[in-house]
């Protein structure tokens, strides 16, 4: 019989992941690329399903940040709290703060959420899992664009105006999402196994918000100043706000280092995620 030389793609499954790192990264990138249609489809599905069942629709995206901003504006104006000058109208400061914070939190939660909601198909259909992460990013961008639009209205309303620094806004925005997703993605495998993890994250982030210049600026001295300046979320929040309103960027180098680390970290997290999914599927629904 003639030996058939076939060009069919071959997949080998075994315990030992002897695949070398280069091949792993190449496979992963190929899957990220090939999954963009699936990712878009997931994102479209979730977004349209989300709004088809609601009258207020996208209003929900900014109702929460607006509500918490209003609380702080009230606290400030009524004299309950006295917040130091922020270099811009306080409502703009606190509103941009809460909006950016909500974007960052969404970014951190997104990988776990996307993967969790796909649990039932993960154990039944083999598809590029990277699509889940990518669809999370798409959904994040969509939701954030709505919030950013609202922020623009605020800038006009409070006469802050549009500055040339806005040109950097998309870049900084992407970087914030990227770092947030990288952190969230790193925690996803363990977070899928133990629900404690996502509870801890939610609780931790609520506390960390008070150590980040979201509602109030960094004080001039004291322990709080040291903590806030070290806090890696500080440069993410402040830089995005500063390019939005046209202020000088305080933590430029810290921000750039974070972005660089974020890219590396995202890569590592993606590889870990890829290796972890079979283990998670096995433990959760085998």
């Amino acid at each position, binding site marked *: 019989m003639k030996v058939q030389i076939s060009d069919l793609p071959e997949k*080998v*499954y075994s315990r030992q992941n*002897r695949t070398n790192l280069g091949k792993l990264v190449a496979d992963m990138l190929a899957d990220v690329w090939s999954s963009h*249609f699936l990712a878009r489809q*997931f994102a479209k599905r979730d977004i349209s399903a989300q709004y088809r069942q609601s009258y207020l629709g996208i209003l929900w995206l900014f109702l929460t940040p607006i509500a918490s901003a209003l609380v702080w504006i009230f606290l400030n104006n009524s004299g309950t709290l006295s917040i130091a000058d922020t270099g811009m109208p306080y409502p703009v400061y606190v509103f941009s703060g809460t909006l950016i914070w909500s974007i960052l939190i969404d970014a951190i939660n997104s990988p776990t959420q996307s993967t969790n909601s796909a649990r*039932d198909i993960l154990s039944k259909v*083999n*598809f590029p899992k990277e699509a889940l992460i990518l669809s999370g990013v798409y959904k994040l961008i969509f939701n954030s664009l709505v919030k950013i639009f609202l922020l623009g209205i605020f800038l006009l309303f409070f006469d802050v105006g549009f500055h040339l620094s806005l040109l950097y806004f998309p870049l900084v925005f992407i970087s914030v999402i990227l770092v947030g997703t990288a952190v969230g993605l790193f925690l996803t495998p363990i977070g899928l196994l133990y629900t404690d993890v996502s509870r801890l994250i939610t609780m931790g982030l609520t506390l960390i918000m008070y150590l980040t210049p979201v509602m109030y600026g960094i004080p001039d001295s004291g322990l709080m100043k040291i903590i806030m300046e070290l806090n890696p979320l500080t440069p993410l929040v402040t830089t995005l706000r500063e390019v939005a309103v046209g202020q000088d960027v305080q933590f430029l180098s810290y921000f750039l280092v974070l972005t660089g680390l974020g890219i590396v970290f995202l890569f590592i997290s993606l590889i870990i995620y890829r290796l972890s999914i079979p283990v998670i599927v*096995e433990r959760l629904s*085998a």
Partner: protein
Amino acid sequence: MAGEVLIKVEGVSKKFCKDLKTSLWYGVKDLVFGIKGHNSDGELRPKEFWAVRDINFELRRGECLGLIGHNGAGKSTLLKILNGLINPDAGTVTMRGRVGALIELGAGFNPILTGRENIYNNGAVLGFTRKEIDSKVDAIIDFAEIRDFIDMPVQNYSSGMKVRLGFAVAAQMEPDILIIDEVLAVGDVGFRFKCLNAIGELMKNSAVIFVSHSMPMIYRVCNEVMLMKAGKNMIFTNNIGLGVKEYYKLFKKGQENIVGSREAKVESFELISGDQIVHAGGMIEIHHGDSLICNLKIKLEAHIPKASVQLVIWNEEMLPVMDVMSQEKEGFIIDNSENSSQLISVRLTDLYLNNGRHTVSVMINAPDLSVSYCRHDNIAEIYMVLDTASAAHVIYPAKWDVN
């Protein structure tokens, strides 16, 4: 002609854990070691067991392997390993070509969205590109026969409609390897028939692994079977009849069971063939075409003047194969005017049942069938010996002529 080998399974094993907390903790360890590239010794840790143990086989294009066994024998786990959803703990699986899995129909559906939108969702999960779906969407809607409802939210579909839509999308795959898990047992008869034809088309050009509990289905589509028990391969054969027979042997004998008003009672029961006599609770072994005599002693309570008696013979799938009645095609009427036990007998000539185990029930009813006095299930078994492999209930040796 044998096609190229598309599936190669070498020494594949998989262990599971019986306890959730421990399982999760092992999961954490596996995560860490998996990333570090730790080489496990393949030993069982506490509370673990082998869900799949040392499975080996090869499958070529054009072949169809039927995977049979009890619930929990490891069939679905093996499918998950073949599909790349979970990794084996030992051994290697090599899959060549596009893999299509009919395991979950309608994966990725969102109930709020319309059927049409969900075709795209499901198609994308199955690996189609947008273009492919665009070109197939009409074929899919036609296949599912739900054009009138295609723009309605899927949550308002009946479960049968959802399955139709899911299957219609999946049927568009062109896999080299096809994995099918029990999904065929859905939908109404007409659609099931359509599904079988579609699967037949897909199978022509692929290597197929088919998991089912329906032996007629196994007979119909497979040319090899593997019987699994407790994760192990008990038998791997291209003699489907043998595999199915071994499968049925795994099940325990049914318990005798009596229901009804108890106003009648089977006092004794015997089956006679040649010089074999078997009483209630026993099993008689006969050959295809043999005859049987069945003797019954029945006692009716005094106030019951007449009763109708019949026998029902069931096959291993618990389907009734034969209803033994009188010449008038109704129950045999016994008269209780003397109020004593009655001895009756019935002769079953030329039994052409298919091979394997059959069970006998005795039914005693009121002549107008208004009351069931006694239904005695599993009173005895008939084991038919026959080497022919067929899914039919009756193998009829007819006389054929050329005209």
